[in-house]
């Protein structure tokens, strides 16, 4: 018989307001095996923990039940507490009477009754608990960063600077991500390329960093400290070791009509291309969708002009297998497609552009060489209308339910730059709210209004009508109480941002969870913002939620710090709750082996005592505790009931069921 101590936490008034903690501890004291029961204001506080430890000694407790917040919150805390008092950590069970009781019920009687039942279930389980010891598994001291934008670059640099090897996998031919397409950055207006490209070069030259550009993660196996990843290097039809990046091929290629993705299709490039001058690695790539040689076998101009002999039309996708201790997701974002918002005539007029397209039109390396010209006729626009929240903050199917966060600031930046470069332009910004909660952000927005004379109008654009070379904008001015009709030359739409489309399949590969908007979820929204709930997976940048550059960099470094903390360890404590076969019951049928997702189950021929002093050789299942992750699939698959899961045994769960249904 166990000697059990019950500790009921008030959690201030969080629990005590809807659960009669005194009564709960009294009732639970009557349960068989309970030798001590008490309640306290904050069980997780120093005093509370000391009380638990004292009680363990005083009453010689062999099991502890703590009725408190979710085990996801403080299970580890209380286990440590008890361990220090000499009790095995797995002799502690938590009854979740906060998240799953006091917070969801309003009535004291109901809450108390339920808390008692939850406490009983935990007591019933502790009766059957056994001390467990965790094994150790080694940590592969290498990190993988998926995505080579500013988030991925920063994370990789920080990890590499700490002395660990890092691989960056980037699906585009160059690293740099969205920031390469941006002209200036708010709120300081420094040039994005000037601050980004040195970092790109740093990453490329760092001896601890290896960049797989034009590559994608194909498969992920394993677990924290020990991931096996297959990386697909897409055929770029150019030998990376030979190409010098001279760019001659990109000038001579006869296929000139390829929409230039880097400039968002605002101009054309060749079928063989280097995305932009400062690309890293600076290696040409052939666009197989447009290359005449690859499509019809006739051409070969690039091969002829390449003095390095780097062109290889026969190149195929190659696969690389690598082992990692930690994986960082930095897959970033994209602006949404605007076909659902054609009241703004985006598909009807080239002069209606997205903010990212506008960024290219303002960029010295963009299609217009940095002079703001209308895409339709190359004329200088004199009236520009900016529309914010296009597709953000929408109800259900209309768009994204969240605020895209960066639009207010970049729109203020665009408006300010327009007025600065072209003081003769009239600039209107239609806003619902202006959100500027960042250092020097509101000051920046106020400058746009006060110093640069941007017309900020509280209201929204309802319809854009392209007619006679103008854009007739019909909008509301809610503060002025009127409907405005503006003849604009350009309309710029601040499109909502969404996670990259590769994020969802990647999350599945990593078994990392996502929210309904396909942003990765963090392990804790406040306290663990850069970790995925899946151990060993870390989050960097906009893949976790909309972020501007300063925030992205901060999160990237935070993720790096977490990775470094992990890679510093030589081994990790394994989950002790692993499967365990009862060899006497096992008949070696292989059912368990088939369902094990980790290949943790093998078979061994073992000698057993048979009848009449004979010896029997039988095939029985063996579980490798370092590999077993404790899902329990095998326990249910086992037809003879030989397989059980430590910490969540059949008996323990049944005891909980009995206690609840009692």
């Amino acid at each position, binding site marked *: 018989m166990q000697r059990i101590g019950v500790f009921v936490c008030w959690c201030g008034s969080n629990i005590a307001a809807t659960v009669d903690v005194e009564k709960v501890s009294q009732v639970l004291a009557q349960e068989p095996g309970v030798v001590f029961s008490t309640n306290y204001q904050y069980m997780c506080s120093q005093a509370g923990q000391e009380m638990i430890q004292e009680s363990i000694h005083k009453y010689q407790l062999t099991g502890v039940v703590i009725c408190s917040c979710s085990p996801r919150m403080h299970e580890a805390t209380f286990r440590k507490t008890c361990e220090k008092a000499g009790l095995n950590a797995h002799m502690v069970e938590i009854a979740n009477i906060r998240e799953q009781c006091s917070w969801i019920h309003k009535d004291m009687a109901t809450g108390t009754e339920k808390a008692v039942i939850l406490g009983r279930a935990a007591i019933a389980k502790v009766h059957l608990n056994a001390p467990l010891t965790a094994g150790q598994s080694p940590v592969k001291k290498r990190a993988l960063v998926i995505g080579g934008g500013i988030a991925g670059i920063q994370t990789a640099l920080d990890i590499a600077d700490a002395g660990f090897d890092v691989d960056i996998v980037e699906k585009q031919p160059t690293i740099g991500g969205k920031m390469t397409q941006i002209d200036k950055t708010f709120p300081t207006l420094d040039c994005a390329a000037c601050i980004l490209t040195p970092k790109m070069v740093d990453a490329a030259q760092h001896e601890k960093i290896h960049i797989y550009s034009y590559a994608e993660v194909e498969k992920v196996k394993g677990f924290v400290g020990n991931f096996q990843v297959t990386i697909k290097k897409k055929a770029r039809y150019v030998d990376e070791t030979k190409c010098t990046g001279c760019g001659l091929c990109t000038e001579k290629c006869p296929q000139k009509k390829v929409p230039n993705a880097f400039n968002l299709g605002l101009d054309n490039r060749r079928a063989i291309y280097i995305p932009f001058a400062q690309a890293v690695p600076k290696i040409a790539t052939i666009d197989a969708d447009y290359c005449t040689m690859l499509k019809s076998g006739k051409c070969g101009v690039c091969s002829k002009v390449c003095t390095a002999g780097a062109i290889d039309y026969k190149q195929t996708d190659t696969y690389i297998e690598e082992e990692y201790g930690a994986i960082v997701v930095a897959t970033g974002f994209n602006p949404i497609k605007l076909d659902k918002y054609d009241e703004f005539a985006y598909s009807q007029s080239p002069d209606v552009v997205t903010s990212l397209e506008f960024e290219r039109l303002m960029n010295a390396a963009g299609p217009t060489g940095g002079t703001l010209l209308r895409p339709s006729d190359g004329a200088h626009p004199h009236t520009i209308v900016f529309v914010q929240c296009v597709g953000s903050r929408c109800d259900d199917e209309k768009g994204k339910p969240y605020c895209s966060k960066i639009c207010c600031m970049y729109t203020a930046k665009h408006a300010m730059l327009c007025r600065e470069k072209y003081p003769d332009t009239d600039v209107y910004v239609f806003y619902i709210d202006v959100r500027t909660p960042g250092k020097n952000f509101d000051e920046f927005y106020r400058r746009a209004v006060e110093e640069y004379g941007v017309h900020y109008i509280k209201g929204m654009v309802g319809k854009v009508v392209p007619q006679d070379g103008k854009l007739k904008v019909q909008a509301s001015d809610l503060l002025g109480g009127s409907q405005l009709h503006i003849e604009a030359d350009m309309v710029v739409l601040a499109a909502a941002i969404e996670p990259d489309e590769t994020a969802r399949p990647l999350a599945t590969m990593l078994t990392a969870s996502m929210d309904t908007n396909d942003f990765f979820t963090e392990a804790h929204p406040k306290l663990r913002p850069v970790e995925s709930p899946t151990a060993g997976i870390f989050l960097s940048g906009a893949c976790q939620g909309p972020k501007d550059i300063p925030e992205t960099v901060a999160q990237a470094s935070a993720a790096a710090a977490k990775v470094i903390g992990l890679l510093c360890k030589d081994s990790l404590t394994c989950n002790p709750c692993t499967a365990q076969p009862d060899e006497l019951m096992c008949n070696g049928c292989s059912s368990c082996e088939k369902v094990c997702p980790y290949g943790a189950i093998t078979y061994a021929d073992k000698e057993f005592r048979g009848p009449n002093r004979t010896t029997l050789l039988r095939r029985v299942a063996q579980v490798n505790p370092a590999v077993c992750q404790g899902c329990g699939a095998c326990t249910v698959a086992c037809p003879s009931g030989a397989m059980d*899961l430590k910490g969540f045994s059949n008996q323990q769960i049944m005891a909980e069921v009995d206690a609840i249904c009692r």
Partner: protein
Amino acid sequence: MSVTENFKPTIVAFCCNWCSYAGADLSGTNRLQYPANVKIIRIPCSCRLNPMFVLRAFQKGADGVILCGCHPGDCHYTTGNYYARRRMTLLFSLLDFMGIERGRTRVEWVSAAEGAKFAATMNEFTETIMKLGPNRRLEDLRCRKD
């Protein structure tokens, strides 16, 4: 119908540790109400749910059993919820055959971010059980409370 008026169903919710238990916590954090009849048992993965547990619950007087796990494709252990889905499909049709109505058993995918869905599911499920009334089929009368 005094039986139904005083009927306080016992509902056992098995929640996987990674998604649904966290989803249940989130509905608590957001103070979303659902009936106290629902009691949650934490299991590492939905595939840990042995059909025996479900039978045991009904035998001991549970009126409804619900299993919550990660969404298909999102299982922390990659494939666990697929096993669970297959097993429960079989089990539930067997139970139906035995007279435990379909409405008393349910599988629902609730992610760690879906606190609202968890609460809504529990409200809905409890309402269904309330309509179905007490489980009389499999309950072991020797286990009866009153």
